[in-house]
C-alpha cells in the first residue's frame, strides 16, 4: 500500500522534469522585461515613463519574490519534489528584477550621480530599506551556485539563505513606506499578506511532513 502511494507521488509532476521545463520558465520570467522594454520604445508607458518603469520593475521584483517563496510550500503541500529545481532560477530572477529596479532609479531619478544617491539614502528611509534588501539579496544571489554551496557547507548555506525571510520583510516595508504618503495600502497589504502566509506555511508544512515520516 505504502509503495503504491509512493509510486503515485513520484509520478506526480513528472512533466516538470522535462528538458523544456526550465527554458520555458526562463522565457516566462523574461516576458515582463520584454513587455516593459517594448512599452518604453513605443512610448506606451504614459506621461511619466521613468516613474512607470521604476515602479513596474519594483512590482515584478515583489512578484518574483512571492513566486520564489511559493516553491517550497507548494512542493511540501502537493508532494511534488520536482518543483525544487525551479527555485534557484526564480530567486535569481528576483535578484535580476531588483537590480533593474535599482539601476533605473539610479539612472532616471538620480542621474547616476553617487552623491545624489547617497543624499537620497540619507533623506528617505524607504530608499535605505530598499537598499538594505538589495544588499542582502545580492549576497544570496552571489552564493546561489553549487560551488558556493559546497564552500559554505549545507548547514551554513541554509542559514544564510534563510535571509530571504528578512528580505521579504524589508521589501514589503520598502513598498509600505513608499505608499505611506498616499495612505494607500491596498496593494501593500496584498503582498504583505501573501508573503506572511508563504513564510508561515513553511514551518507548518515541515512539521506535518515530519510527523508523517515519524
Amino acid at each position: 500500500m505504502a509503495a503504491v502511494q509512493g509510486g503515485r507521488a513520484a509520478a506526480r509532476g513528472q512533466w516538470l522534469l522535462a528538458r523544456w521545463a526550465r527554458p520555458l520558465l526562463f522565457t516566462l520570467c523574461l516576458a515582463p522585461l520584454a513587455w516593459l522594454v517594448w512599452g518604453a520604445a513605443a512610448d506606451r508607458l504614459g506621461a511619466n515613463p521613468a516613474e512607470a518603469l521604476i515602479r513596474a520593475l519594483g512590482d515584478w521584483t515583489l512578484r518574483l519574490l512571492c513566486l520564489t517563496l511559493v516553491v517550497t510550500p507548494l512542493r511540501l503541500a502537493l508532494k511534488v519534489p520536482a518543483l525544487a529545481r525551479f527555485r534557484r532560477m526564480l530567486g535569481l530572477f528576483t535578484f535580476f528584477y531588483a537590480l533593474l529596479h535599482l539601476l533605473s532609479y539610479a539612472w532616471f531619478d538620480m542621474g547616476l550621480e553617487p552623491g545624489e544617491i547617497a543624499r537620497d539614502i540619507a533623506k528617505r528611509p524607504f530608499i535605505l530599506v530598499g537598499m538594505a534588501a538589495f544588499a542582502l539579496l545580492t549576497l544570496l544571489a552571489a552564493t546561489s551556485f553549487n560551488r558556493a554551496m559546497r564552500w559554505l557547507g549545507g548547514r551554513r548555506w541554509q542559514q544564510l539563505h534563510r535571509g530571504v525571510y528578512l528580505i521579504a520583510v524589508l521589501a514589503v516595508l520598502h513598498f509600505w513606506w513608499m505608499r505611506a504618503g498616499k495612505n494607500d495600502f491596498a496593494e501593500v497589504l496584498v503582498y504583505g499578506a501573501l508573503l506572511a502566509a508563504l513564510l508561515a506555511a513553511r514551518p507548518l508544512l515541515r512539521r506535518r511532513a515530519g510527523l508523517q515520516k515519524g
Partner: protein
Amino acid sequence: LPARRTAVAGGLSMEKLTAYKDATTYNNFYEFGTDKGDPVKNAATLKTRPWTVAVEGLVNKPRTFGIEELLKLSPQEERIYRLRCVEGWSMVIPWVGYSLAELIRRVEPQGSAKYVEFVTLADKPTMPGVNSRVLDWPYTEGLRMDEALHPLTLLAFGMYGEVLPNQNGAPVRLVVPWKYGFKSAKSIVKIRFVEKEPGTAWNKAAKNEYGFYSNVNPDVDHPRWSQATERRIGEDGLFAKRRKTLPFNGYEAQVGQLYAGMDLKKFY
C-alpha cells in the same frame, strides 16, 4: 472656450507646452482614485451641469453663482503657467479663466475677511475615491486674502482652448502657479471668506509635510524627499535630466513681495 491672451505680468510662460494627452491622463485627483491614471478612467461620472458655487462668509454680498453666470462674469483669458507638483514633477499648461480677484471684488469682502477657503465636491455616488480614507472629505484648500487677490491666482474653466476635462477639475478650479499643485482646488462648490487660517485637506492629513503656504521652494525639502529638482513631464524621454526647481516656481518677481519678512522655512 474662446479667450483672449492675458496681459497679467508673468501670465504667459514661453516654455514648451506639455502634451494635452499627458496633462489629461496623469493627474492627482484623489476623489477619483490615488493612481495618476485613475482620474481619466473614473471621472466620466462627474456631472458638471447643473453646477453652482456658493460664495459666503465675511462678505457684503454673499450669493450662489450658477456655472453659466460664472463663465460670463469676466472676459476669459489664456494663461500659460508652469505647474509644479509637490511630488517632484512639472508641466506647462495653457489655462483658460480669469483672475479670482474678479469674483472676489463682486462679493465685497469685509475688513475682517483675512483668508479664503475653497470647498470642493465630495459626491460618493460619482466619486469612488471619496469612499477611501486617504483624506478628510470634502477636499478643502485655502489662501491668504492677498494671495487670493493676486492677479496670477486664476479661476480656471478651461485648458488648451477647451473646457476643462473632468479629470482636470471641471467645471471650475483654482490655479495658483507659484504653489504646489495640491493648493489649486478642483471642482469647487463653495468659496468662504473667513477670519482665521482655514484647515486644508493635506495639512490635516500630514501637518509636518504639507504646510498652509506650500509655496514652491527648492530650499525647503519635503520631509520625505528633496524639492531641489523636478522632472518635466514629456521632456526628452526617459533619459532627460531633472530640472532645477525655482523659488516660487519661477514667479518670485510677481509674488515674492507677498512674503517679505516671512521665514519661509517656518511658514512652509
